[in-house]
């Protein structure tokens, strides 16, 4: 009498089996379609890219919604899909490259999580299914980083050994294992360069290792996710669909105006009102742009993020720009970690980044002449420290919209660009670690409280709340 029970109890609108391709594809797409509250509300505010009255980040106050969105959206569904995929493919030699790609992307996600929150559940995350772990312990960032490095090395080796095998469900490189290997190496470079303060020796050796493995060498190597109206770019949900059609910050606008940056009219425009209220562009002359200023005596801001470029559902998303790789290499050269010409990497970074904007909707190509003029006006300075500042200022300009959370880490790592904290804030310093989601105190109380010991025993922006590599 129970023989049909399993069938009856199966969900008719779903399946119990899933292809690796569909899971990897989903994880890659979700990475840039999910709600980006954390990245805009906090990272964009901290990095003085912009200002919105909806953002708590401008005044450095704690707001659980945006503080937890990166956590919530990356752990589920992105890591849900990746963990399942990794388990499904780990013993399948025919899917070795897919397995390796999934592990690389898992590193990509976890680095963003730990850079943002510090110590987080890592070793016991994703064990709900297999080991019924519902309250995972928090791992030290140092251990997480060690594991990320191991994971990247293993994945790069696996891709090298299976270079002809197609990565299934690849949204970036049409399944090319060698391209994924470059992405893995580029990630190893980024992971390594995070350690310059805490462990320069390891930073240096990892940079060497990454470059030897073969990092991205052009825009053609960068992972670009082409969104559609159905799978809208996450920036769209903040800018166009939401009500946070934010102003550009004076810090950014002034920097770009002073540098005659041809990217400024692509990044911003003067709007009559937020687009959600029917606002239209009324002025696109960079010289007229007035950014948001912390000082209330300054004029009211006029320039908002350019919604026709970034606020479109089908705007492609750059998860990891070639320019970032080039700038990391330039800095690694300056620091003596790797050999090469810092200026070459610097020039390649600026050029690559300006050229990559042509991939965005309604964006005219920035001409070679404009790029040359910009580089002439903003050359790599002479001294090492000035070079590092220049490189990382360009890193900041490049990470606008797409990689605010990475820039937030890069700024903490290098101290550049030099930002003046909002004098109107209570703390008067830019926070250096995001607070944990409030839900963790309900659902994983003992573990989150144990983790707080390293951060002043408070879930606040306090002076002890600094991640390991930032010490």
């Amino acid at each position, binding site marked *: 009498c129970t023989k049909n029970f399993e069938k009856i109890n199966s969900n008719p609108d779903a399946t119990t089996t899933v292809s690796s391709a569909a899971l990897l594809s989903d994880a890659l*797409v979700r990475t840039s379609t999910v709600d980006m509250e954390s990245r805009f509300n906090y990272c964009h505010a901290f990095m003085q890219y912009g200002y919105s009255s909806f953002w708590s980040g401008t005044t450095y106050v704690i707001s659980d919604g945006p503080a937890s969105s990166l956590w919530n959206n990356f752990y589920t569904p992105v890591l*849900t899909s990746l963990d399942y995929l990794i388990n499904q493919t780990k013993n399948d030699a025919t899917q070795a490259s897919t397995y390796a790609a999934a592990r690389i992307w898992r590193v990509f996600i976890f680095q963003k999580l730990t850079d943002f929150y510090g110590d987080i*559940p890592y070793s016991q995350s994703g064990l*709900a*299914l297999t080991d*019924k772990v519902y309250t995972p312990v928090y791992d030290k960032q140092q251990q997480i980083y060690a594991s990320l490095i191991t994971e990247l090395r293993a994945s790069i080796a696996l891709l090298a050994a299976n270079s002809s095998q197609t990565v299934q469900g690849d949204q970036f490189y049409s399944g090319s294992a060698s391209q994924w290997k470059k992405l893995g190496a580029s990630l190893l470079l980024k992971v390594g360069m995070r350690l310059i303060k805490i462990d320069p020796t390891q930073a240096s050796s990892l940079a060497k290792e990454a470059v030897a493995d073969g990092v991205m060498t052009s825009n053609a190597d960068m992972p670009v996710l082409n969104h559609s109206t159905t799978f809208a770019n996450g920036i769209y949900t903040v800018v166009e669909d939401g009500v946070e059609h934010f102003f550009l910050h004076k810090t950014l606008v002034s920097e770009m105006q002073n540098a005659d940056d041809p990217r400024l009219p692509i990044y911003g425009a003067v709007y009559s009102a937020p687009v959600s209220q029917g606002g239209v562009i009324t002025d696109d002359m960079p010289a007229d742009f007035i950014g948001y200023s912390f000082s209330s005596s300054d004029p009211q801001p006029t320039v908002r993020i350019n919604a026709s470029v970034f606020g479109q559902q089908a705007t492609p998303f750059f998860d990891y720009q070639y320019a970032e790789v080039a700038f990391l290499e330039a800095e690694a050269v300056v620091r003596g970690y790797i050999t090469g010409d810092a200026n070459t990497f610097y020039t390649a970074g600026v050029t690559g980044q300006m050229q990559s904007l042509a991939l965005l909707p309604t964006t005219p190509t920035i001409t070679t002449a404009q790029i040359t003029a910009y580089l002439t006006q903003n050359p790599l300075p002479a001294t090492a420290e000035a070079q590092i500042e220049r490189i990382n200022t360009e890193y900041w300009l490049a990470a606008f919209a797409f990689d605010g959370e990475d820039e937030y880490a890069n700024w903490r790592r290098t101290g550049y660009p030099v930002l003046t904290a909002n004098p109107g804030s209570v703390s008067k310093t830019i926070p250096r670690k995001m607070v944990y989601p409030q839900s*963790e105190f309900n659902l994983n109380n003992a573990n989150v409280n144990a983790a707080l010991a390293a951060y002043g025993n408070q879930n606040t922006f306090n002076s002890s709340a600094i991640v390991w590599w930032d010490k």
Partner: protein
Amino acid sequence: RGFSQKINLNETNTPLKKVLQQINKQTGYAFFYDSKDVANKSVSVQLKDASVEEALSKCLQNQDLSYKIIAKTIVLQQEDQVTKSSGMAPAPIVIKGKVTDDKNETLPGVTIKLKNGTASTVTDINGNFSISVPDDKAILVFTYIGFTPQELPASASSAMVVKLLPASNSLDAVVVTALGIKKEEKRIGYSITQVSGEEVSTTREPTFVNALAGKVAGLVVQSPPNGDGGSSRVILRGYSSFSGSNQPLYVIDGVPINSNTRENTDDQGKVYGGSDPGDGLNSINPDDIETISILKGASAAALYGGGAQAGVILITTKKGKKGAGVGVTFNSNTVFEKMIPYDNLQTEYGRGYYGRIYTAADDTVSFFYGGLGNNSGDPPGWSWGAKIEGQPFLDIDGKTKPYVLQSAAENFDRFYKIGITSTNSVALTKGYDDGSYRISLSDTRDDSPTPGEGYERYNAVFNLNQDFGKRFHTSFKVDLSRVLRLNAPLERGDGRGSMGQSYPRIANTTDITLLDAKDASGNFLSTYTANPYVQIEKVKNDQTQNRVLTSANLTYDITDHLHANVITGLDYINTDGVFAVFPNNVTNNSGIYQTSTYQQQRTDVRGTLNYDTKFRDFSLTVLAGVESQNASQYSLTMGGSNFIDPSQLNFSNLKTVNLPTELHSPRSETNSVFAQADLGYKNYLFLEVTGRNDWYSALTSNLSNSKNYLAYPSANLSYVFSDALHIDPKILSFGKLRAAFGQTGSNPTPQRTDLTFTSQGALNGIPLSEVTNSAAPPASLKPEVTTESEIGTELKFFGNRLSLDADYYYKKSDNFLLPITISNSTTFSSVYVNAGNMYDKGFEVLLAGTPIKTRDFNWDVSFNAAKNKNMVTALAPGLGTGIDLYYNIEARVGYPLGSIFGSTYQRAPNGQIVYQLENSQTGDSGTPNSVIIAKNSGDNYLGTANPDWSGGITNTFTYKDFSFSFLIDGQFGGQVYEADAIWTNYFGNSKASLLGRDGTYIPNGVINTGTASAPVYVKNTLPYSSYIQFNDNGNADKIINQSNVFSRTFIKFRQVSLAYKIPKSILRNTFIRSATFSLIGRNLFYIRKDLPTFDPEASDSIGTGFGYDSGGSPTSRTYGFNLNISF
């Protein structure tokens, strides 16, 4: 003239009946026969001077009829019957008579059986009967549902006049128990309450079960003000589960029906706003209900196994009665409904802020006045203004008017009209020799007090009972219903316009009709949240439910003591919904449109074998059976937004159309076997043992350690000590002790045991799939189980003038199955687990009596009360502090389920309230000039939603043909989190907001001049500012949860009715058999209510989130009349 003994006949093909008449004429012998035995028979006979015997044997030759002559009567009988009755038996006697009830009303359809024989008949439409019995020592047994069976010796000498007494006063009352088994009450070892259909049909509620409020001990009924057709909350003996809604299983004529509320489903608008989609109970026509049996405990319900965890409500519908002839009943009911205005609001200060009236200088809104910088977009404003003294003020329409109170009563009268609900039902019954049928039609139309809101219900029920021969009995039922809900109210803080949402949030000097004013472009006045006129004019929320409830019940008597029965039932519901918000400036600029269709199907097939026997002093009934239940659901929803033409509802008129959502789940099957043995000893000691085993599809998976079945045992013992100990019946007419133990369970939620994936479509040509619902499958699963023990007694004194029924129960529920939220860092957001345990314990008392009983006047009193205590005893490890059920409502170990948690008043060690310094107005600088209560934030226990006590008292007075009855019920203890109180406080509308308005109230409390960790308390000397406490210049950040928690205690004058039964003497010469006219009133007023302004019975959720109310519609009282006529 004399009769001849000689008979002459010359007939050819003459009907037998005529020939018999001839014989009668010629001889004077009377004939007695069953007309059907004689019908269609004809004879050809030639006789001259024949004897009676000769004539009869000639006439009856080859007619299968035999005759007997008794005195001057000739009895004809079918040959086979004669042979069956003892061959040598004396001649039969015909007994005639009439059966009436205790009020001398004739009873049609009473079954009369020959004791220890086969002869049986039923009374006709006038209560008359005739039955032939073998001899003058025969005993006749009279039985009739709802009446005490009677055994009387047959009396042939004169017509018998038999009076049957209603069962409710009797010792041998028959009640309907699990699986529809009728049992003598004395045999039952657990608590069961049976109420008649009249209880729910006279004082009419659209959903029948709502009319049971206050009438049954241990049954708590709440009908949240969600509009007619909304879900009802029915709780039997407290909570049994964390999950689901704790609603009982409803079984109609043996078939479980679909009564799930869709409240907690993923329907649009479930708990956060939207409307209550209802629970399917309201489609039942109360006029069709014969009796309702309430199986409160696990022992009573154990035969239903899983699904009966929260108790069972058995409904038996009216049927035609065999042989009762034709009857027509007409019932007409009209009730008027008037909304009850909010009470207890402050009436002293009007619209404004900082104690002053708005002026033109405050105007920052071009069309309407009153938009302040800090109050912009809310012209109706706050009641934090000046003292209302009729001085001129600038109203929201820009006109200067006298500053006068616009009371809730006035505004309610402006907004609402008197609602009218009319119900007309007609039922036709016909009974014939081997069957009966009943056809009932009913039409309910409710024009709600809210303009545009309404409810309509149409029922057509056909019920057929048909015997095929003596052994095969069948019964079929089809109940077709159609329910329309027009513009069902939007609830639970829905900002799209309900009065409950908006009224606490407008100033008390605002004439509500001003909210209906529009500017030149048709824009409404902007309001803080909802504008009730927007709901009327711009929201469309219609639901149409079509339902088929059908069943077949077949019984075959294999022998007189062995019966086989098969019941099959189908419940099919199709609900179509339309939800639209037309473009408007208040709630949605571009408009939204959604349509949905739900199909719910439930089938049940059950077969039982039943055997009864007697040996020496024992009687034994055993029963065994199998059952298979299936349920499935299908839904399709479509939606879009952005209207092109602002007035058209169709998908081509939308700029944005979303992908449709289609679901073919949940679906489930449960298969079961069950058995019951009922052993009686000497009519005073009874033991019943039952067992059932359910196999659930919902717990079946490829998980190695899951268990998909559970056995539910029960046993109960009844000891009628009054009989056993031969107690003087004049003092104790009946005394019973009972004890019971039983287990029930819940039907688990299907499709939770496997990890599944759902396609998300494709991007760049590559498909995407994701884990469905992001819920991790369980590690192991056990079915939920509720184990209950109860003991009780039933005592009747002084010839049943006083009766007491009391019981105590202890109910333990384990292994709650529910999806619990887990940290996202697990990569899942929830997991389905066995998550906790709890218990309920309590007792129930029913006390009934007849203090006065004379020939013309009767006074009956019935009082019931129940106490229940619930406690959560365990949660799954790793669940942290508790489970959030709904906003401030949680499940936490050591507290009752559904307790309220939140911030409290800070108190010094000596208990004094701690105040903190504030400026009385925002913008004041310098030394603080006032105080507010300091907040102790965090999750502190604030109370429980569950009442300690509930009960009711009904008084009924009858004088001749008049009867007057009223019900008062109440609940004592328990709290409510009244989220609307936040808003009456914030807007300065509550009486609480009056405290300290004039700046002179200096509260007796302390101020902490030290630090939080090292407090130094000094006496407070500054005045209190309710404005900062409750409003804080629009920030509302100083509000303390504790100030929104109120006692739920109430006593309500629930129901009153005055009925006049038109006397028989008047109706004698008409075609009307009986007529009753009654005046009725429901929910008239509260005798006591601790919760100011709002309704203590209102709640956002009928499930475990009960206890949090955020703005349901105000409640109403109804009054009207009922006319019942039988032809």
